[in-house]
C-alpha cells in the first residue's frame, strides 16, 4: 500500500527544473533511501512534500488525501514530519524541553497559557521515554545548543519522531559526524522506526549507510528519478553506477 504518492511534481528555480515531473512513492512501513549527487533535487523534493516550498505543478497525495495545498501545520497533523540537514533545534531549551514542547504542540496543548507545563506528567514521561529510545536520556537537562554534534543529529530526529508521524523524512541524519559515529546513529534511528512500523525516507550520501539500512532506494538525477529498487537492484543498475556510485565511492 502506498503511504505517499507524488504525481508529476514540478518545482522551478528560475530556469532550472529542480524537481521535474517526479512520481515518487513511499510504502507503508518501509525505510527508503533517497540518493543522488548534490543538486539532484532530493532536498527540494522533501521540502515540497513537507510544505516548506509550494510546488509549481503536480500533486501530493498522502494516505489518499490531496495535501498539495495544505499548510505545514496541516501536513504535520496528517502525519508528515521531517528533520533537517543542518541541525535545527531550540538551542536555548534543554534536550528534554525540545522533545516535550513537540509533544505539547502535537497534543494541541501549546494553546494553554494558564497552567504550568511542568504539571503535565504524561507529556514529560513520554518525552523522557523518547529520549531514552534515542539514547539521549543522560543529556536530558543539557541545553540543546550544548550537546555534541552526533547527539544533536539524534535529537533532531527525536524531535521529529515526537510528532508521532506516519512518515518521517530525515535529511542527511549522519552528515557532519565522523564515520565511526554513523553506524550507531543509523542503528538507533532504524530500530526506532522499524519497531513502531512507521515509514522513513532518508536522504543520504554515504553508500555504505544506504545499502546497509534501507529496504528500497530511489536514485535522483537532475530533478528526475533515475532508478527505483531494492539495494541489490540499485547496485546492479548501470545508470546509477555510472552517474552516482562511481563518483561517490572514489571520494
Amino acid at each position, binding site marked *: 500500500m502506498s503511504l505517499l504518492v507524488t504525481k508529476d511534481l514540478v518545482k522551478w528555480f528560475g530556469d532550472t527544473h529542480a524537481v521535474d515531473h517526479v512520481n515518487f512513492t513511499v510504502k507503508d512501513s518501509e525505510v527508503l533511501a533517497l540518493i543522488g549527487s548534490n543538486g539532484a533535487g532530493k532536498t527540494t523534493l522533501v521540502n515540497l512534500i*513537507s510544505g*516548506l516550498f509550494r510546488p509549481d505543478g503536480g500533486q501530493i497525495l498522502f494516505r489518499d488525501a490531496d495535501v498539495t495545498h495544505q499548510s*505545514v*501545520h496541516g501536513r*504535520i*497533523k496528517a502525519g508528515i*514530519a*521531517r528533520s*533537517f540537514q543542518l541541525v*535545527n*533545534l*531550540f*538551542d*536555548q*531549551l*534543554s534536550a*528534554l*524541553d525540545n522533545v*516535550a*514542547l*513537540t509533544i*505539547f*504542540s*502535537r497534543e494541541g*496543548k*501549546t*494553546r*494553554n*497559557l*494558564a*497552567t*504550568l*507545563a*511542568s504539571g*503535565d*506528567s504524561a507529556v*514529560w*514521561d513520554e*518525552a*523522557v*521515554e523518547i529520549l*531514552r529510545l534515542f539514547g539521549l*536520556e543522560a543529556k*536530558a*537537562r543539557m541545553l540543546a545548543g550544548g550537546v555534541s554534534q552526533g547527539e544533536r543529529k539524534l535529537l533532531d530526529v527525536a*524531535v*521529529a519522531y*515526537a*510528532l508521532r508521524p506516519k512518515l518521517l523524512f530525515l535529511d542527511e541524519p549522519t552528515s557532519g559526524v565522523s564515520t565511526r559515529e554513523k553506524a550507531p546513529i543509523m542503528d538507533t534511528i532504524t530500530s526506532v522506526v522499524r519497531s513502531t512500523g512507521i515509514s522513513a525516507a532518508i536522504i543520504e550520501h554515504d553508500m555504505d549507510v544506504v545499502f546497509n539500512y534501507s529496504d528500497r532506494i530511489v536514485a535522483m538525477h537532475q530533478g528526475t528519478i533515475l532508478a527505483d529498487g531494492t539495494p541489490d537492484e540499485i547496485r546492479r543498475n548501470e545508470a546509477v553506477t555510472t552517474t552516482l556510485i562511481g563518483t561517490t565511492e572514489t571520494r
Partner: protein
Amino acid sequence: MSTLAPALQQTGSTDKTLRVAVPIAVLLALVPLVVPPYGAILLAYGLVMAIGALGFNLLLGYTGLLSFGHSAYFGVGAYAVALMVKYLKVGSMELFLVGAIAASVLVTALFGVVCVRYTRIFFGILTLALSQVLWSLAFKFFWVTGGTDGLRVPTPSLFGGLVTGAGDKTAFMSHAYYYYVLIMFCACAALMWVIVNSPFGMALQAIRDNETRAEFVGVRIWRYRWVAFLVSGVFTGLAGALWVPLNGLTTPDIMHWTFSGEIVFMTVLGGFRSFAGPIIGAIVFNYLKTYAIGYTVYWQLLLGAVLVALVLSLPTGIVGTAGKLAARFRGRS
C-alpha cells in the same frame, strides 16, 4: 519511568519560586510602615513600571521580538482612564482597569496583526512607527486629549468604593494606593510567571530560538506571536492605568518613543534573559531616573551612555551579572 520524569523537569519549580517570592512580597508590604510617604510613592511608581516591563519582556526575552513602541500601550491604558473620567465621570479604579484592558486589547489586537508578520529590525521599526502615530494623534486631537496640557485624573475610589481618597492625597497614595499597586503587581507577576512556564510559554521560546523548526513541530508562528503581542500590550496598558492616578495627569509624553526607550532600557538594565530582570530593572531605573533628573537636565544623555556601556560590557543585566558573580564566589569558597 514516571519516577525519573519529575527529577528531569525544568529548573525553577513552583515551590522554589514561592520560597523566594513570598518573603519579597512581605517585605514590600512592610515598606509604607517604615519609609517616609515619598519613598513609598516612589516604590509604587517602580512597581507599576515593573508590570509594564514584565509585559514588554514577554516579547523581548521569551519571543525574541524587540518592540520600540510599548509606550503606545502604556499610553492607551493611561488615556483610557483619563477619557473615562472626562466623558463618563467614572471614579472607580476597578472600572478604570476594565476600561484600560479593553482599550489595550483593541489597540494591540489591531497593531499586532500587522507587526507579528515581521521580526528583527522590521518589527522594531513598525512598533516604533505605530506608537508615533498614536502619539501624534494624542498630540493633535487636543480637543479630546487636551494636547500637551494633558488630562487630569482625580484620586480614584478603590475596591468598589470601600476606600476613597477623600483625605490627604499623599497619605492615600503612600498607603492605600501603594497596597493596591502591590496587589496588582503580585497578581501580574504570578500570572506572567505561569504564562512563561506554560506550554504556551514554551512554544514562544521555541519560536524565539528557531522559527522554522517551531513551524515544523506544528506551532503556528504568527498566531502565537499575536497572542504574545496581545498579552504583552495588555500588561503594559494595565501599568499605564495604574500609573495615571499616581501621576494625577497624563500627557502625550508617555506615548512618545522616548518612553518606549525607557521601557527597553529598564528591561535591559535588569536583564531580559531572566524572569526577575525586568522587575528589578524597572525599580532600579525608577530610582536612577529620579536622581538623574534631580541631578542634571541631561539625564537622557546619561541614560543613553549607560545603555551603550551596558550592552557593550554587561549584556545580561543586573540579574545575569549578579548570578555570574554569585556563581564565581561560590566556586572560590
